[in-house]
């Protein structure tokens, strides 16, 4: 099964890299026509469908790569900065597949309505970043994940737990920044797209790593979720999180007191979710690092 997944991942990596190059030429052909609202032929419309299939391939490849990184992290001798960086950019590349989908859907919609498509300027840098990540991941799958940097047996996990806190910290921070934008650009805020969809996307990496961690826990012999130091750290972090989130929610309430139709009405939940995730992960990391 492991060998099968290894080959599938490498094949998907190569296909993804090829898709990025082909997508570039498709956009090179379609963009001038869409920007000037020229008529797109049936064949060219099918090319967009091809781009859509490519997005599914990217999604699967990044997902498998993230699982590989997670299983590598589990037995890594040390959690180094490059490993955390790799996980973070891997998660970002994965998230950007959803943004690709959203941007391309927006572009298509705006073209049909005869509106300008400023999203094009975002599509190219994002896809370039994803292309570079696809090449780096494929290379790492082939030569990077060396078994000599791994510990043979780990009865009780520490590494995945640690990385879950890093991902929680990053997702929490990104979510808070994104939610805060709602207060600044409230006129252009779209509840469905900018709150619901983006919150789900930003929470997804954390959910994935926690699901992986749970899955791993079922395989451990002891049957306990945490060891006694972890449970102490989680308890302290939960206390700090509760105290701080109560404080932040009171601030939000005061801020919204005379403004019942304001943005707080729709943003309180993501604000609460991301702030608790951020505080919980940050304090957990603090206690873990303190020893």
């Amino acid at each position, binding site marked *: 099964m492991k060998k099968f997944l290894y080959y599938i991942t490498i094949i998907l990596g190569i296909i993804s890299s090829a898709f990025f190059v082909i997508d570039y030429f498709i956009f090179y052909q379609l963009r001038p026509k869409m920007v000037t609202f020229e008529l797109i032929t049936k064949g060219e419309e099918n090319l967009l469908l091809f781009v859509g299939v490519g997005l599914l391939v990217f999604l699967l490849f990044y997902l498998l790569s993230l699982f590989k990184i997670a299983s590598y992290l589990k037995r890594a001798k040390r959690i180094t900065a490059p490993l955390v960086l790799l996980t973070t950019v891997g998660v970002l590349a994965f998230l950007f597949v959803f943004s690709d989908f959203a941007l391309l859907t927006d572009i298509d919609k705006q073209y049909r309505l005869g509106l300008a498509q400023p999203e094009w300027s975002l599509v190219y840098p994002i896809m370039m970043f994803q292309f570079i990540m696809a090449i780096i991941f494929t290379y790492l799958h082939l030569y990077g994940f060396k078994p000599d940097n791994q510990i043979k047996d780990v009865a009780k996990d520490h590494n995945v737990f640690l990385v879950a806190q890093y991902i929680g910290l990053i997702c929490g921070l990104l979510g808070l920044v994104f939610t805060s934008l709602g207060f600044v650009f409230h006129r252009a805020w779209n509840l469905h797209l900018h709150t619901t969809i983006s919150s789900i996307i930003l929470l997804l990496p954390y959910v994935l790593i926690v699901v992986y961690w749970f899955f791993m826990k079922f395989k451990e012999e002891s049957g306990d979720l945490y*060891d*006694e130091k972890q449970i*102490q750290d989680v308890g302290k972090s939960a206390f700090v999180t509760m105290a701080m989130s109560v404080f932040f929610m009171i601030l939000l309430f005061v801020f919204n007191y005379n403004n019942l139709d304001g943005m707080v009405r729709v943003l309180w939940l993501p604000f609460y979710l991301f702030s608790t995730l951020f505080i919980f992960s940050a304090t957990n990391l603090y206690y*873990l690092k303190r020893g």
Partner: protein
Amino acid sequence: MKQKKSKFANNLRKYRFEHNEISQQELANRVGVTRLTIHSIETGKFVPSAFLALKIAEFFKVKMEDIFYISK
């Protein structure tokens, strides 16, 4: 009168080295905790439960108080 603060201390590191220089990870695997927990106990930042302390003592085949003690 104010009581002098006592501190939990241990000889865990010494016992590890006397026991074929067993690594923190190996000891952690044998007693069912994470490597960080063993490290935190050794550096005095974490006080283990009586159950874990007994498990560690049992592993080294010594009494619990040979490894763990209160320093004043």
